[in-house]
């Protein structure tokens, strides 16, 4: 896979290139935001640093999103609430904070790529994430061979999260998809449905709350 690494720190960029090359990806490096905007065409995934010398990474992301749907994973030293929220809201597929382990990084890259390619998948009525599989036609959800007895809202919620498994679905997106109103005043009902869904899944940590943004479904592997 062709990756574009946008990173101004040479040492980190070098390590990243070596790391992704080790698992068979090809990587090119841009150290400036303007370079990144010129060279994103070949990339299948962009690893974006926020602290760039010429412009802010969030600005790069915003401009990039106007022309391209290429998956973007932010890898930044910033971990304040605002950067994370803005990064994810502006269309980043994931937000990772430095330092990060190689296995986690590769897993995230994989998850984001998989999801990005899912749009072209043949069977749109079948969603699977790890050992969770959902059939939208039959409205069936099966976790590790165990069928889940879900209410209508819970099923919709799980499908939405599973379709974006591994990356964050914002609260607004959920409210918009399930209730048709992204700025629903009674957003606490989402919490209620979520609690019910979690109880039925009975796998702690499967649906992760991303502070200030929304929720992410971690594809269960077992």
């Amino acid at each position, binding site marked *: 896979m062709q990756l574009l690494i946008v990173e101004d*720190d040479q*040492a*980190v960029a*070098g*390590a*990243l290139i*070596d*790391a992704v090359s*080790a698992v068979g990806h090809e990587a090119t490096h841009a150290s400036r935001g303007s370079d990144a905007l010129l060279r994103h065409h070949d990339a299948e995934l962009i690893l974006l640093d926020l602290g760039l010398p010429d412009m802010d990474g969030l600005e790069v992301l915003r401009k990039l999103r106007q022309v391209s749907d290429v998956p973007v994973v932010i890898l930044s*030293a*910033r*971990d*304040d*609430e*605002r950067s994370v929220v803005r990064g994810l809201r502006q269309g980043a597929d994931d937000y990772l904070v*430095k*330092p*990060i*382990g*190689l*296995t986690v*990084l590769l897993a995230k890259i994989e998850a984001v790529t998989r999801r990005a390619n899912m749009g072209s998948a043949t069977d749109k009525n079948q969603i699977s994430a790890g050992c969770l599989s959902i059939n939208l036609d039959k409205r069936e959800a099966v976790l590790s061979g165990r069928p889940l007895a879900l209410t209508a809202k819970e099923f919709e919620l799980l499908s939405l999260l599973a379709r974006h498994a591994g990356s964050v679905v914002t609260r607004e997106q959920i409210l918009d998809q399930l209730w048709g109103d992204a700025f629903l*005043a*009674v957003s*606490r*009902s989402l*919490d*209620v449905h979520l*609690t019910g869904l*979690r109880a039925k899944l009975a796998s*702690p*940590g499967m*649906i*992760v*709350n991303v*502070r*200030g943004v929304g929720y992410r479904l971690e594809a269960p592997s077992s």
Partner: protein
Amino acid sequence: MRIRVLAVLGSLLLVIVVLVSSVLMQSVSSDATADVQVNRLSSLNRFVQVASHASGNDDLEMLQLEMDTYSQLYNEGLLIVVDDRQLISGDIRADDAAVKEMVGAAALNLDRTEIPEISPLTETVALISRPFGNSAQVLGSVTMQVNLEPARARVLQASAFIIVLTLSIGFIFLLLADRLATWVLRPLHRLDDSVQLLTQTHQPIPLVEQGPPELRALSRSVSSMAQTMATSLQQQQELIAETSHQLRNPVAALRLRVDLLRMRLTDEASLAGLHAVENELARLEMLLDGVLRLASAEHRLTEQKSDKTDTEVAQPQKPTHAYQILAEEIERQSAMAQKTGSTLSLEGDSKSASEDAVWCHEFDLQQMVSELLENALKYAPGTEIKLALQTSPTTVDIVICDQGPGLGKEELERVGERFWRAESVRGTPGTGLGLAIVDRLARANSGQLIVESNGDTGLKVIIRLPRAQTPQGADHEE
């Protein structure tokens, strides 16, 4: 200082009041005395004249009649000695020692016409006498018992008036002195308040320049000192934050390189060595992370204290529901809890929504609860960790109890210090920053962190936050 200034000024004013009033009273009483003296002396002279020309019984009877009239009119006694006869009218007694002495003196041709100075408190009668006769011998005398009561009353009245007047003038001056002292001291008080505020908040405060020029200069100096101090503190904080931030890049590179190395290495010995490197790297990452979070927590704290109305740091506009956040954080930590064999339980249910609303930044609350849960899981593994909400009319307590080894009394006092870790847990990885971070964040949200013993065993950590009253029905289920 004000009391002292007033005491000094007050005693000075008292001395002045006493001096002025005594001088005034003196002059009033001598005026009154002179008045009485002139008045009585003319009466005395008339009687002397009448008595000296009296001859024969008819004249004496006329004299007696006149004396009686006088005595009745003025309520004063008269004793006239003429031709060895004593004519008496009014309330005077010839056998009185003082009267005898006066008559005796008059017989010796001694004029006693001085009336003693009238003071408001002296006796109410005075005796005056004047002899008469020809150049060769004393033929008689007139002794008058002067009734000083009306004069004394007048003097007393005047004195009282003088005392009241001088006292009130003195009081007015004292009030003026008080105002003056306040004017001088107000800038000092304000300065004191400001400096105290400064020590609490570490934020410079603009001082209003008021009062005497010296104090204005002092205000300016203190302002600039506070500014310098705050700037240096801020720089220090920024340096810490910036440094740890800058360290993230090299550490990130290092982490990736080490992980790559692990993938490529095959022989046992190198892997063992690499394992040690990884451990140290993990420690470094944890420390770095902790320092950064602490720096940002302290930043929030100073922002809260400085009361900036910046939209980003202002108090949250809407209340945060603590129950939901506790549930979220338990969910987040549940995988870890399964690993350590701990159980996480939350008392109550989400229906008590109106009672769990707190004024706290949602993100801060999540971070605090997560920090405390991580601590509980790390230091009290395999035990039951209970979370509960306790509401009082003004506060909401988030209580997290564990059944772990807990902390000793002395150790409890040191909780919240940066980089402090209990003796017993030095073996487990950790930074000693967790509770410090929670402490700063709680205070940044006008709350507090309370750490105490949970009965015989375990630790009880409480985050006390200001309670938010939510209007009924505003946030109900659809």
